[in-house]
């Protein structure tokens, strides 16, 4: 199938390539600085005799590889990250140096990027065929168990899922009594992951072992082997090991290096059998090991991509909120574990004592959603500086977003609080209506513009002005706070309004906590709320 990769998939592959690579170099690119940087590199390397145009990477790239750079840049602009690609540089005497590169965009306008280089085809561990001097035993079991195991592993999203699947099904599909797997750490040790059903005493004793050839696990990983030994052979070959296998009643022990789809070794799986008749043949053992290796690789990549996107999102939300003249503010944000949403908020205080309040929701999830969110927030911050009309601000942001032609969409509610006029002026780009509470809770209908970024959309819906004559609560929120599939959306919003009314006499922080806690935890969407308490300054009230 010729599907385009998602940015998460590209990022995962970039990260996985980086994690296992011995990096040769890192390049950071900012287009307009490249020539200056090249000049400096020239004088630093005493290469002044090279013509003043500087060092030309393009000239060093043979024609058959020039398309690769362009494609990577297009990828990076489009997805934030490129595919790994190979290229060669021609150096002084016509010699060619091969490199693998991946380009990650750090900003689109101006285009900035960072590229990681590794030696072409470098692999972190020696890859060798299964050792033949080790014993091979041949019984077999039904393939049904294997099939179920593979299916279960395919759904594993975290390392814990993998461990659980191994616990339930690996032992069954290989007929063994004992199973664990081990991953190499950065400190030349093997970290052993025991399955939950493992003997707790063994699990405690074998937590981390040195990564060398003094153990079956270590040797299998370092020499990329798959082997099964009798307990006698084991004790003979690895004399420093204790007799735990024997005391557990095991007759055979095996280990196999686990590979990823592209042939990298990610760790080693260890097994023990109590019955010679059940000992798996090496091919089957190796297949199971590779199934686990693949699942671990995918799980750690997606965990990494998720946690990167989550930290990105956290970085993009304001860390500190400025005080508001004539008001108080509480914000809450609840992330979901399995995906990164695109909810955002912002509070911008201006020199004229007015405050801008923003809440929004990017259409989509993951890193790309974070990128759109960052853009919308920065565009908003820039455009409120010289404007006081929320609907105009939204239109400006809409135009800026549309101009990039990346089909990024976001709903957004923007309001400007003017403490002197005691007015809250609000405009919306397809976002959920705010709820205002003074005596009773009221949903404030605002004529809706389409979401930011929609092609051919007209922004002519205008503002709504809310007069604040008495202490008032204002609630902005995203759909995670109301999303109920079995209920009409207006009913859900009304329910939220009555919830606000019910808790209105509590402190602002308590109300915010209560509302976010009541958000349906089944909803697989992040949730943000912004709760404002406005108190008109009595001294200003004309008598």
């Amino acid at each position: 199938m010729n599907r385009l990769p998602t940015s998460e998939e590209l990022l995962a592959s970039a990260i996985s390539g980086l994690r296992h690579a011995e990096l040769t170099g890192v390049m950071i690119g900012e287009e307009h600085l490249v020539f200056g940087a090249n000049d400096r590199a020239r004088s630093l390397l005493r290469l002044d005799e090279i013509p003043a145009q500087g060092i030309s990477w393009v000239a060093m790239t043979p024609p058959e590889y020039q398309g690769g750079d362009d494609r990577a840049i297009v990828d990076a602009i489009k997805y934030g990250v490129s595919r790994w690609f190979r290229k060669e540089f021609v150096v002084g005497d016509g010699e060619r140096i091969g490199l693998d590169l991946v380009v990650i965009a750090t900003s689109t306008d101006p285009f900035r990027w960072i590229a990681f280089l590794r030696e072409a085809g470098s692999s972190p561990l020696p890859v060798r065929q299964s050792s033949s001097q080790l014993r091979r035993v041949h019984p077999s079991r039904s393939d049904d168990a294997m099939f179920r195991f593979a299916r279960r592993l395919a759904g594993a999203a975290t390392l814990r899922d993998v461990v659980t699947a191994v616990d339930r099904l690996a032992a069954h599909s290989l007929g063994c009594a004992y199973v664990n797997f081990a991953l190499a750490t950065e400190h030349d040790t093997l970290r052993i992951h025991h399955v939950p059903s493992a003997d707790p005493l063994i699990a405690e004793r074998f937590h981390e072992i040195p990564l060398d050839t003094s153990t079956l696990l270590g040797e299998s990983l370092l020499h990329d082997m798959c082997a099964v030994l009798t307990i006698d052979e084991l004790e003979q070959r690895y004399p420093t090991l204790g007799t735990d296998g024997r005391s557990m009643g095991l007759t055979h022990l095996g280990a196999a290096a686990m590979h990823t789809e592209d042939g990298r070794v990610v760790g080693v799986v260890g097994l023990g059998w109590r019955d010679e008749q059940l000992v798996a043949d090496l091919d089957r053992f190796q297949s199971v090991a590779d199934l686990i290796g693949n699942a671990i690789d995918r799980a750690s990549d997606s965990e990494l991509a998720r946690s990167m996107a989550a930290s990105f999102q956290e970085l993009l939300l304001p860390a500190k909120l400025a005080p508001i003249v004539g008001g108080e503010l509480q914000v809450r944000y609840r992330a979901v574990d399995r995906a990164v949403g695109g909810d955002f908020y912002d509070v911008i205080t201006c020199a004229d004592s007015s405050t801008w309040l923003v809440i929004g929701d990017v259409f989509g999830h993951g890193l790309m959603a974070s990128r759109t969110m960052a853009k919308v927030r920065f565009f908003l911050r820039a455009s409120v500086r010289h404007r006081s009309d929320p609907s105009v601000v939204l239109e400006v942001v809409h135009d800026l977003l549309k101009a990039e032609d990346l089909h990024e969409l976001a709903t957004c509610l923007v309001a400007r609080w003017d403490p002197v006029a005691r007015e809250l002026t609000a405009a919306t780009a397809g976002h959920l209506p705010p709820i205002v509470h003074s005596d009773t809770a009221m949903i404030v209908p605002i004529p809706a513009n389409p979401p930011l970024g929609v092609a051919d959309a007209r922004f002519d819906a205008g503002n709504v002005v809310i007069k604040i004559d008495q202490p008032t609560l204002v609630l902005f929120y995203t759909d995670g706070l109301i999303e109920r599939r079995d209920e009409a959306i207006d009913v859900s919003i009304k329910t939220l309004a009555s919830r606000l009314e019910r808790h209105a006499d509590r402190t602002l922080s308590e109300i915010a906590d209560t509302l976010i806690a009541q958000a349906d935890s089944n909803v697989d969407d992040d949730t943000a709320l912004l709760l404002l308490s406005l108190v008109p300054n009595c001294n200003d009230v004309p008598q």
Partner: protein
Amino acid sequence: MSDVSEPVNRFQVLATDDGWELAGDIDASTAPELAEAFSGALPASGVVVVDIADVTFIDSSGLRVFVDLNARMGSEMVTLRSAPRNVRRLLELTGLSSSFRFVETADD
């Protein structure tokens, strides 16, 4: 695969002469399938009708797919047939109702 729990309102997409017929929940998990269906060739008439009578839920991932289809059509708008009240209301709230043409039955 009976051990995998299915959502209550299973998503379905069916190609018709003038567009598509959809049913079930359109959310982050089903929107990619819809996007793939919509990425196919558009009817030669230039008029695209999407019957959404049996659509039970749409979230922003689903709306996005409709907005993208609309963008592909250029100046022509996508026609939504038999939009359930809740879907129509969501389009109003999100300011998107003027981006689509609504018709009630197949005879319109």
